[in-house]
Protein backbone atom coordinates (compact mmCIF):
# COMPACT_ATOMS: atom_id res chain seq x y z
CA UNK A 1 0.00 0.00 0.00
CA UNK A 2 1.29 3.45 -0.86
CA UNK A 3 -1.48 5.76 0.25
CA UNK A 4 -5.19 5.85 0.84
CA UNK A 5 -6.51 3.06 -1.29
CA UNK A 6 -3.46 2.91 -3.54
CA UNK A 7 -1.87 -0.49 -3.83
CA UNK A 8 1.04 -1.77 -5.88
CA UNK A 9 0.70 -5.40 -6.84
CA UNK A 10 3.20 -7.83 -8.26
CA UNK A 11 1.43 -9.31 -11.25
CA UNK A 12 4.08 -11.58 -12.61
CA UNK A 13 7.68 -12.49 -11.91
CA UNK A 14 9.64 -13.67 -14.91
CA UNK A 15 13.16 -14.14 -16.09
CA UNK A 16 13.04 -10.77 -17.86
CA UNK A 17 11.66 -8.81 -14.96
CA UNK A 18 8.79 -8.16 -12.65
CA UNK A 19 5.46 -6.85 -13.89
CA UNK A 20 3.78 -4.44 -11.51
CA UNK A 21 0.26 -3.22 -11.44
CA UNK A 22 -1.30 -0.29 -9.63
CA UNK A 23 -4.72 -0.47 -8.04
CA UNK A 24 -6.25 2.88 -7.16
CA UNK A 25 -9.70 4.35 -6.53
CA UNK A 26 -11.51 5.77 -9.56
CA UNK A 27 -10.82 9.37 -8.58
CA UNK A 28 -7.04 8.87 -8.55
CA UNK A 29 -5.38 9.17 -11.97
CA UNK A 30 -2.64 6.64 -12.68
CA UNK A 31 -0.16 7.31 -15.46
CA UNK A 32 3.26 6.03 -16.28
CA UNK A 33 5.85 8.73 -15.67
CA UNK A 34 7.19 8.38 -19.21
CA UNK A 35 3.76 9.16 -20.68
CA UNK A 36 3.44 12.29 -18.54
CA UNK A 37 6.97 13.30 -19.55
CA UNK A 38 6.11 12.91 -23.24
CA UNK A 39 3.08 15.15 -22.83
CA UNK A 40 5.14 17.68 -20.92
CA UNK A 41 7.80 17.76 -23.65
CA UNK A 42 5.16 18.07 -26.37
CA UNK A 43 3.53 20.97 -24.50
CA UNK A 44 6.84 22.78 -24.20
CA UNK A 45 7.39 22.36 -27.92
CA UNK A 46 3.88 23.60 -28.64
CA UNK A 47 4.09 26.66 -26.39
CA UNK A 48 4.18 29.94 -28.26
CA UNK A 49 5.62 32.84 -26.34
CA UNK A 50 5.31 35.00 -29.43
CA UNK A 51 2.23 34.46 -31.58
CA UNK A 52 3.42 36.70 -34.38
CA UNK A 53 4.98 33.80 -36.22
CA UNK A 54 1.78 31.81 -35.98
CA UNK A 55 -0.03 33.70 -38.75
CA UNK A 56 1.60 31.71 -41.52
CA UNK A 57 0.78 28.53 -39.69
CA UNK A 58 -2.86 29.51 -39.33
CA UNK A 59 -3.22 29.71 -43.08
CA UNK A 60 -1.40 26.46 -43.78
CA UNK A 61 -3.31 24.58 -41.11
CA UNK A 62 -6.70 26.15 -41.80
CA UNK A 63 -6.47 24.95 -45.37
CA UNK A 64 -6.14 21.36 -44.17
CA UNK A 65 -8.97 21.32 -41.66
CA UNK A 66 -11.96 19.07 -42.20
CA UNK A 67 -15.36 20.80 -42.26
Amino acid at each position, binding site marked *: MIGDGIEVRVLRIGRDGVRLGVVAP*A*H*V*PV*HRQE*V*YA*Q*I*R*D*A*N*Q*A*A*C*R*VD*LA*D*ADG*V*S*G*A*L*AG*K*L*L*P
Partner: protein
Amino acid sequence: MTPPSASPAATPGEMGGSAAEPRREVIAFPKGLPGFEGCRGFVLLASDDSGLQCLSSVDGPPASFLVVDPRRVQVGYRCQLNEADRLSLEAEEGDHLLWLALVMIEGDGAVSVNLRAPVVINPRRMIGQQVIPYHCIYPLRHVVVEAAS
Protein backbone atom coordinates in the same frame (compact mmCIF):
# COMPACT_ATOMS: atom_id res chain seq x y z
CA MET B 1 -18.11 11.45 -24.29
CA THR B 2 -18.69 12.96 -27.68
CA PRO B 3 -16.69 16.16 -28.19
CA PRO B 4 -18.96 19.06 -29.19
CA SER B 5 -17.93 21.66 -31.73
CA ALA B 6 -15.47 24.26 -30.58
CA SER B 7 -16.85 27.79 -30.57
CA PRO B 8 -15.13 31.11 -30.03
CA ALA B 9 -15.28 32.00 -26.38
CA ALA B 10 -14.60 35.74 -26.55
CA THR B 11 -17.55 37.52 -24.98
CA PRO B 12 -18.87 40.84 -26.36
CA GLY B 13 -17.40 44.06 -24.99
CA GLU B 14 -19.34 45.83 -22.30
CA MET B 15 -21.52 48.72 -23.39
CA GLY B 16 -20.30 52.22 -22.63
CA GLY B 17 -16.79 51.36 -21.52
CA SER B 18 -14.23 53.74 -22.96
CA ALA B 19 -11.25 51.45 -23.26
CA ALA B 20 -13.51 48.43 -23.28
CA GLU B 21 -11.58 45.30 -24.04
CA PRO B 22 -13.92 42.42 -24.68
CA ARG B 23 -14.32 40.58 -21.39
CA ARG B 24 -12.79 37.16 -21.66
CA GLU B 25 -13.86 34.64 -19.13
CA VAL B 26 -11.04 32.86 -17.38
CA ILE B 27 -11.13 29.09 -17.38
CA ALA B 28 -9.67 27.54 -14.25
CA PHE B 29 -7.00 24.89 -14.78
CA PRO B 30 -6.44 23.58 -11.24
CA LYS B 31 -3.58 21.36 -12.39
CA GLY B 32 -2.19 23.72 -15.01
CA LEU B 33 -0.81 21.73 -17.95
CA PRO B 34 2.02 19.19 -17.88
CA GLY B 35 5.15 21.35 -18.00
CA PHE B 36 3.10 24.43 -17.06
CA GLU B 37 1.77 23.47 -13.68
CA GLY B 38 1.94 27.09 -12.50
CA CYS B 39 -0.55 28.30 -15.12
CA ARG B 40 -3.84 28.01 -13.29
CA GLY B 41 -6.03 30.24 -15.45
CA PHE B 42 -6.45 30.45 -19.22
CA VAL B 43 -8.57 32.33 -21.71
CA LEU B 44 -9.62 30.94 -25.06
CA LEU B 45 -9.32 33.38 -27.93
CA ALA B 46 -10.35 33.17 -31.56
CA SER B 47 -9.03 35.83 -33.89
CA ASP B 48 -10.72 34.68 -37.06
CA ASP B 49 -12.93 31.98 -38.51
CA SER B 50 -10.06 29.70 -39.40
CA GLY B 51 -10.98 27.10 -36.78
CA LEU B 52 -7.82 27.81 -34.82
CA GLN B 53 -8.06 29.26 -31.36
CA CYS B 54 -5.48 30.34 -28.83
CA LEU B 55 -5.38 29.12 -25.26
CA SER B 56 -3.44 31.74 -23.29
CA SER B 57 -2.43 31.75 -19.66
CA VAL B 58 -3.54 34.70 -17.53
CA ASP B 59 -1.47 33.81 -14.49
CA GLY B 60 1.78 32.06 -13.88
CA PRO B 61 4.39 32.01 -16.67
CA PRO B 62 3.20 33.46 -19.99
CA ALA B 63 2.18 30.63 -22.25
CA SER B 64 0.03 30.49 -25.34
CA PHE B 65 -1.02 27.48 -27.33
CA LEU B 66 -2.66 27.22 -30.70
CA VAL B 67 -5.53 24.77 -30.40
CA VAL B 68 -7.98 23.16 -32.77
CA ASP B 69 -11.01 20.91 -32.57
CA PRO B 70 -9.44 17.41 -32.93
CA ARG B 71 -12.35 16.26 -35.08
CA ARG B 72 -11.22 18.69 -37.76
CA VAL B 73 -7.92 16.91 -38.20
CA GLN B 74 -9.01 13.34 -37.49
CA VAL B 75 -12.21 11.88 -38.85
CA GLY B 76 -14.27 10.26 -36.13
CA TYR B 77 -12.05 11.49 -33.27
CA ARG B 78 -13.49 10.23 -30.03
CA CYS B 79 -11.95 9.56 -26.64
CA GLN B 80 -13.35 8.24 -23.40
CA LEU B 81 -12.80 10.49 -20.43
CA ASN B 82 -11.12 8.72 -17.50
CA GLU B 83 -13.27 8.68 -14.36
CA ALA B 84 -10.65 10.66 -12.43
CA ASP B 85 -10.68 13.38 -15.10
CA ARG B 86 -14.47 13.43 -15.24
CA LEU B 87 -14.51 14.07 -11.50
CA SER B 88 -11.86 16.78 -11.55
CA LEU B 89 -13.66 18.53 -14.43
CA GLU B 90 -16.89 18.21 -12.42
CA ALA B 91 -18.51 16.89 -15.57
CA GLU B 92 -22.01 15.54 -15.11
CA GLU B 93 -24.28 13.52 -17.32
CA GLY B 94 -25.45 15.71 -20.16
CA ASP B 95 -22.65 18.25 -19.89
CA HIS B 96 -21.25 19.28 -23.26
CA LEU B 97 -17.50 19.39 -22.99
CA LEU B 98 -15.14 21.29 -25.24
CA TRP B 99 -12.28 19.18 -26.62
CA LEU B 100 -9.20 20.95 -27.97
CA ALA B 101 -5.95 19.61 -29.36
CA LEU B 102 -2.66 21.49 -29.05
CA VAL B 103 -0.94 22.46 -32.29
CA MET B 104 2.83 22.06 -32.63
CA ILE B 105 4.83 24.06 -35.16
CA GLU B 106 8.00 22.14 -35.86
CA GLY B 107 11.38 23.46 -36.86
CA ASP B 108 11.16 22.09 -40.39
CA GLY B 109 7.84 23.81 -41.07
CA ALA B 110 5.67 20.79 -40.35
CA VAL B 111 2.54 21.34 -38.29
CA SER B 112 1.28 18.55 -36.09
CA VAL B 113 -1.50 18.16 -33.56
CA ASN B 114 -1.43 16.35 -30.21
CA LEU B 115 -4.32 13.90 -30.39
CA ARG B 116 -3.02 11.78 -27.53
CA ALA B 117 -3.60 14.30 -24.76
CA PRO B 118 -6.40 16.72 -25.54
CA VAL B 119 -7.40 19.68 -23.40
CA VAL B 120 -10.95 19.25 -22.17
CA ILE B 121 -12.99 22.19 -20.87
CA ASN B 122 -16.25 22.06 -18.96
CA PRO B 123 -17.94 25.34 -19.96
CA ARG B 124 -20.64 25.02 -17.31
CA ARG B 125 -18.05 25.00 -14.53
CA MET B 126 -15.33 26.91 -16.42
CA ILE B 127 -12.81 24.23 -15.50
CA GLY B 128 -10.23 22.80 -17.88
CA GLN B 129 -7.57 20.12 -17.86
CA GLN B 130 -5.27 18.33 -20.27
CA VAL B 131 -6.26 14.69 -20.13
CA ILE B 132 -4.48 11.48 -21.10
CA PRO B 133 -7.29 9.04 -21.85
CA TYR B 134 -6.23 5.53 -20.86
CA HIS B 135 -7.34 3.86 -24.07
CA CYS B 136 -6.62 6.66 -26.50
CA ILE B 137 -5.59 5.23 -29.86
CA TYR B 138 -4.45 8.48 -31.40
CA PRO B 139 -0.85 9.69 -31.73
CA LEU B 140 0.98 12.37 -29.80
CA ARG B 141 2.11 13.92 -33.04
CA HIS B 142 -0.46 13.79 -35.83
CA VAL B 143 1.09 15.57 -38.81
CA VAL B 144 -1.36 17.83 -40.63
CA VAL B 145 1.02 19.96 -42.68
CA GLU B 146 4.10 18.19 -44.00
CA ALA B 147 7.54 19.67 -43.60
CA ALA B 148 8.58 22.04 -46.36
CA SER B 149 10.82 20.06 -48.68
